[in-house]
């Protein structure tokens, strides 16, 4: 009997097509696919640039001179300096390429720190409720009400005394961003947990006498994390903006310890009025492109996750085995009978079930 039924099990899709982004890419059509692909390409270029920065950049981020002598300040693009040099005498192209490395480090640290803290707090708060939940929600609301950049400045001063070297600066930026982001993860996971807590399968686990830990991790957490990739991408772009903002107002990383786009933009302020466009254009463009790319990915994932927003291919030829809407393997209108007795109208399910074998 089992050998007979096993043949009817449809093979599952291969693993790689079920991975988060790949799955959405295959699912998307038309403009939505265009947006997603554009976002993925920009993000991909950004990540590759960050990884291969030492190979791609013609000079070091803090290099002021080479064998032929000092670069000179504010050189026009061309020659040995493809994008010119800054007022401080750095090579713009090299600074832009190295800057991607700083940006990605801050994003990763900020998102990783906030995702763990936020998810854990949200899960506990949503699942147990009570006074702990109320206190945490109030704290998170208070953090929300704070301007993110102001908070980041305060954190930057607390952590590193304002300006610092590479890791000090990166962590100052990352932790300050973390503080701002935890409430977002907290809110989303808490809301999902509260919703899932009322689902019948959680109640069923409670009736069985499963421990709170088991219910939280086996039943609630895995179902609550669906929206995370979306916030993840949106937060990553926000992290970059906060980092650039910190650098721009002078709480960033010293040019001698790392390249940072916001800092370069700050230093190029005076150049703009004197017609030197290349020092501000390229770091600014880098910020805009990366934020755009990541946001495109995030927004596309959001649209694709919602069946009401997702566009579909126009119906062409109907699939040979038309099923009725309302579920893939729904019983035919014969109900279980339709599945089990081999009624002619639903023969594709006829040997699903050995009921009629009795």
């Amino acid at each position, binding site marked *: *009997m*089992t050998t007979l*039924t*096993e043949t*009817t*099990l449809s093979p599952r899709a291969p693993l790689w097509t079920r991975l988060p982004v790949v799955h959405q890419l295959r*699912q998307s059509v038309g403009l939505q696919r265009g947006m997603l692909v554009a976002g993925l390409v920009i993000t991909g270029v950004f990540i590759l640039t960050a990884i291969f920065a030492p190979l791609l950049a013609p000079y070091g981020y803090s290099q002021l001179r080479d064998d032929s002598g000092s670069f000179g300040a504010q050189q026009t693009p061309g020659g040995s300096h493809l994008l010119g040099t800054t007022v401080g005498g750095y090579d713009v192209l090299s600074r832009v390429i190295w800057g991607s490395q700083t940006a990605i480090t801050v994003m990763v640290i900020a998102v990783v720190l906030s995702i763990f803290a936020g998810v854990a707090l949200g899960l506990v708060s949503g699942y147990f409720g009570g006074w702990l939940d109320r206190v945490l929600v109030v704290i998170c609301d208070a953090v929300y009400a704070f301007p993110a950049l102001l908070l980041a400045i305060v954190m930057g001063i607390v952590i590193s005394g304002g300006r610092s070297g590479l890791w000090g600066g990166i962590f100052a930026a990352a932790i300050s961003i973390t503080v701002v982001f935890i409430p977002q993860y907290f809110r989303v996971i808490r809301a999902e947990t509260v919703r899932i807590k009322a*689902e*019948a*399968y959680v*109640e*069923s*686990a*409670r*009736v*069985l*006498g*499963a*421990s709170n830990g*088991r219910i939280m991790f*086996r*039943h609630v957490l*895995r*179902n609550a994390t669906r929206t995370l990739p979306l916030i993840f991408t949106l937060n990553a772009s926000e992290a970059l903006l906060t980092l650039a903002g910190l650098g721009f107002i002078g709480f960033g990383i010293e040019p001698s310890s790392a390249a940072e786009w916001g800092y370069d933009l700050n230093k190029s302020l005076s150049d703009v009025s004197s017609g030197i466009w290349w020092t501000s254009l390229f770091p600014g463009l880098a910020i805009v492109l990366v934020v755009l790319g990541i946001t495109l990915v995030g927004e596309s994932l959001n649209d694709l996750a919602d069946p009401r927003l*997702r566009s*579909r*291919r*126009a*119906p*062409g*030829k*109907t*699939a040979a085995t*038309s*099923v*009725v*809407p*309302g*579920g*893939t*393997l*729904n*019983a*035919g*209108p*014969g*109900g*279980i*009978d*339709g*599945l089990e007795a081999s*009624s002619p*109208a*639903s023969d594709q399910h006829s040997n*699903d*079930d*050995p*009921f009629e074998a*009795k």
Partner: protein
Amino acid sequence: MRSLPDVVRIDNLNVTFATDGGAVTAVDGVSLRVAPGEILAIVGESGSGKTVTAKTILGLLPDTAIAHGAVILSSKDGSNSNDVLAVSKQKLRQLRGADVSMVFQEPSTALNPVYTVGWQIAEGIRAHGEFSRKEARAKAIEILGRVGIPDPESRVDYYPHQFSGGQKQRVVIAMALVLDPGLIVADEPTTALDVTVQAEILDLLRRCRDEFGSAIVLITHNMGVVADLADRVVVMYEGKIVEEAPAQELFSNPQHDYTKRLLGSVPHVGQGTTRATARLEAREAHWAAAKPVVVADNLKIQYPGRLGKPGFTAVDGVSFTIRPGEVLGLVGESGSGKTTIGRAMGGLTRVTGGSLTVLGHEMNGFKERAFKKVRSDIGFVFQDPASSFNPLLTIAECVAEPLVVHGRAANPRAARRRVNELLEAVQLPRAFGDRYPHELSGGQRQRASLARGLALEPSLLIADEPTSALDVSVQSKVLELFAELQKEFGFAALFISHDLAVVDILADRIAVLYQGKLVEEGTGAEVLGAPKDAYTQRLLASLPVPDPVAQALRRDELRILRAAG
């Protein structure tokens, strides 16, 4: 009358949906017509295309649907007719409300909560012609009175939440009637309502036809409702019409196999009485003296109210017992407290007064730690098969969960042998264990749910409306399985349902709840055969039977009963 054209004529309608899995045909070559003043019922199970067909008449299909064919809609006086599929959106708006209108399933979501009902009715009137605010209001008051809302002059300014469910549905019907359309499409108009309210709404729909002369397209899966109301019946199956006949003919002499099966699986009161007596006779002599599994004594359950307000008493002084191996059917309408009692027995809701003893454990003021051991002796089957399984676990993992939690198996894989046995006990193939819940139909999921409930061989099973979300033929299979398993495993059970006929099939004894109080308790023959309480009598009389002739008689009985009570 004879000269008037059909109010709607559907010719060879095909509707295709674009889905993630490719195009799917929902309606396949359907042709039907509705004469003026006729009530046509479209029956079929979920996914048979009945709702899609009806929505096409109003041009309410979503953007992902593509329809072919013709839907010719004529106005009531027969002066003009239009093809709904071909007209412009603007013309469609004119047709809706004036020529055809709709009554929705869920009255509480069909009304906008922030406007008064009078405003909402007037909005429809003013969208179709020049009416002053005063005229529209007068019309709204008139129509509310005609659908049986008492004191319409003041009720017209009420908000939807100030009406009961049945009254809300009356308001929705008033909205549909106000422009005097030739056709009303009613999509499961009574599914969300209690049986006693359902009977009133069915009366009202009949009056819509008799007094307003509207034709009605009634979409339903309830054969009792069809028998009560319909002149002619269309049976749909996989998007096609398989049978079309006048109501009496269809019920007395069904032609198509599917129709026969559908009618055969409709539960009706009186089915289970003989079986219950047989079970009673088979019991051992000292059974009645055995220690009961569950004893409720003056049980009270109160939900806490908001600050400064008294709580809501869901269960008020209920006493009953369940003896070993006995099935107690708990019947009541929504809000009667039947689910609360089931949840209290499973330790999901706290008991606030009286005493509830489950398997020797007092539930009033229970501690989770002390109760955990008892839990392995209690099985629970939930109402909604769609949400009772963790969507990320396979069926085998879900069924193994109780075994793992209570230490009978180290992990789901070790429990697989036992899981396979259980799946076979509920007549599911072993291979289904590797599927995910969404890959199973509702009936299959509910059987897997039974398997999970029985995994620890409990001596008490609590089934909370296990079949109310299922189609009738699936329901009859699941009930049959439940009875078989009960016989085999011999567990005691609390079977909660709003449907008297369903409870009758399974229960040894039936308890009727009304507003948190137990109004009647006894064997099926006692409660259903000779009900003593007025509420039980009304409940029983309101239940439509799937037989047009018998139902017409019952309708008169109910009218007398209502006039008396």
